[in-house]
């Protein structure tokens, strides 16, 4: 029996990899239900290793490449790519983005309107990352929890964690040296007039925006990156920037309903890479930063290999 503290993203992904290797697993979490207490409920759900490569270490690209296949085992994954655009005056940013990333092709205004007809005539240059995907984070956590239950994993929500456990995946609640919070603010818009099918990124020197379709006219927009542990609701400044960036993508967003706003704290180490470490005799998987969905599959497999050394699939 392997016990895990934390039924958020990392805990559930690790439970999956362990259960798949044939051991019984029990997960403890003080929250009410899968994901209810997890920072992942604010996430975009982008599986975008190549775009992230713009500012992340090469390892993120390498580890993230298989994430879409992994998630597709348990939840719907939308493999429609990422379209990166920039307003005309920020085209130098597009050039830089292209130089720093791979697995993309340049697209013209005509190709952009073919991919996303609502954007026709709005952007003349863009980059298309065909291999990228997205999912719905809240649904993904619920679906993952369901698969775990089907596999016989015990998910104990609303339950205090025993002192002795095998793996700690408590995210920001873990007391680890060098683990710091990076605050992220987001909003969900409802705008049935607009149909966008894939993740869009709008480059901007100060406030780059991403928009992830959630289906039925809903769009998640995010996300700020602030070195702070404050979990107060989003500030007017951040929201103004996010919402006006959405308006830059398409003026019809002016009529969107803002159905939700939120702010979450991403757990991160100084190099912004996840780590498997032993601290005070306890094994931890943590530091997923803005890459929980992207990197949890690969890191969960690693941690499972470490816990069950003889059992390399």
């Amino acid at each position, binding site marked *: 029996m392997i016990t895990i503290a934390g039924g958020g993203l990392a805990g559930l992904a690790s439970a999956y990899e362990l259960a798949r290797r044939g051991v019984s697993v029990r997960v403890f979490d003080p929250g009410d239900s899968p994901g209810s207490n997890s920072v992942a409920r604010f996430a975009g759900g982008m599986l975008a290793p190549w775009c992230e490569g713009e500012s*992340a270490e090469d390892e993120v690209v390498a580890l993230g490449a298989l994430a879409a296949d992994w998630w597709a085992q348990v939840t719907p994954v939308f493999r429609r790519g990422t379209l990166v655009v920039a307003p005309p005056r920020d085209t130098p940013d597009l050039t830089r983005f292209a130089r720093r990333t791979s697995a993309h092709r340049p697209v013209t205004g005509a190709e952009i309107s073919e991919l996303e007809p609502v954007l026709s005539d709005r952007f003349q240059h863009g980059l298309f990352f065909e291999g990228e995907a997205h999912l719905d984070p809240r649904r993904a956590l619920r679906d993952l929890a369901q698969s775990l239950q089907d596999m016989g994993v015990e998910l104990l929500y609303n339950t205090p964690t025993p002192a002795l456990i095998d793996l700690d995946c408590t995210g920001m609640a873990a007391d680890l040296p060098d683990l*710091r919070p990076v605050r992220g603010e987001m909003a969900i818009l409802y705008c049935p007039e607009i149909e966008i099918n894939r993740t869009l990124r709008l480059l901007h020197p100060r406030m780059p925006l991403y928009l992830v379709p959630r289906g039925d006219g809903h769009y998640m927009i995010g996300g700020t990156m602030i*070195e*702070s542990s404050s979990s107060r609701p989003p500030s007017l400044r951040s929201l103004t920037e996010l919402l006006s960036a959405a308006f830059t993508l398409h003026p019809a967003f002016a009529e969107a309903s803002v159905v939700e706003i939120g702010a979450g704290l991403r757990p991160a180490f100084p190099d912004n890479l996840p780590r498997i470490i032993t601290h005070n005799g306890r094994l931890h998987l943590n530091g997923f930063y803005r890459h929980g969905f992207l990197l949890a599959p690969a890191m969960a497999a690693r941690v499972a290999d470490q816990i069950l050394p003889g059992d390399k699939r």
Partner: protein
Amino acid sequence: MQIYDTEINSRLLVGTAQYPSPAVLVDAINSCRCEIVTVSLRRENADGSGTGFWDTLRQTGTRILPNTAGCHSVQEAVTTAQMARELFGTNWIKLEVIGHADNLQPDVFGLVEAARILCAQGFQVFPYTTDDLVVGEKLLEAGCEVLMPWGAPIGSGQGLRNPDALRGMRAHFPNVPLIVDAGIGRPSDACQAMELGMDAVLLNTAIAKAGDPAAMAQAMAQAVDAGRAGYLADPMERRNMAIPSTPILGMAELA
């Protein structure tokens, strides 16, 4: 170089925003051996909540110059400065009062007013200003002992858009430390600023957004050193025609 009552050896000051990760930032700081880094504060940090990141910065041993980046009014800038004094235990403040949300041009009227208030409260103010001489004078009157003129708009990487104005500032304020803040994109820009006789340069985006921030930080430090040495060495004057370096008088005329 002396700024307020502090002796400073490195003439490169580095901003800490927009790096891929704190680890990359620390590498950059170490590779350019800067002594002063600027840090921006947000309201979110009022309770000391930025600590994880600040601890990383403190470990580098650099001196922290908090800034009021993103403040659009005198009141906001003054409140942020007070918060910074509390949090970082320093009287230093890099004062920014932004007048234009889009190009981040300083609001020089608000700047002078905020500088007056903060100097009266015992702050040592580093004002981010334009290259306007009259504004510079007003800032000195307000109690500032250093001026930080822009080279170009923040984050634009355009280099020095008006070198003549900076040259004019140098001539007009021979004894005031002048630090070019904003607009530096490449090492040659930093070098040019130093050749003009500026005392130091402050930059952020050019390092943070480079493909290899640590390598760029080092290149910037070398450029600053080269520019300073060039300025001190009293460069020759430019001419508008070629002058052979070997005298032609007395050369044999071979028919």
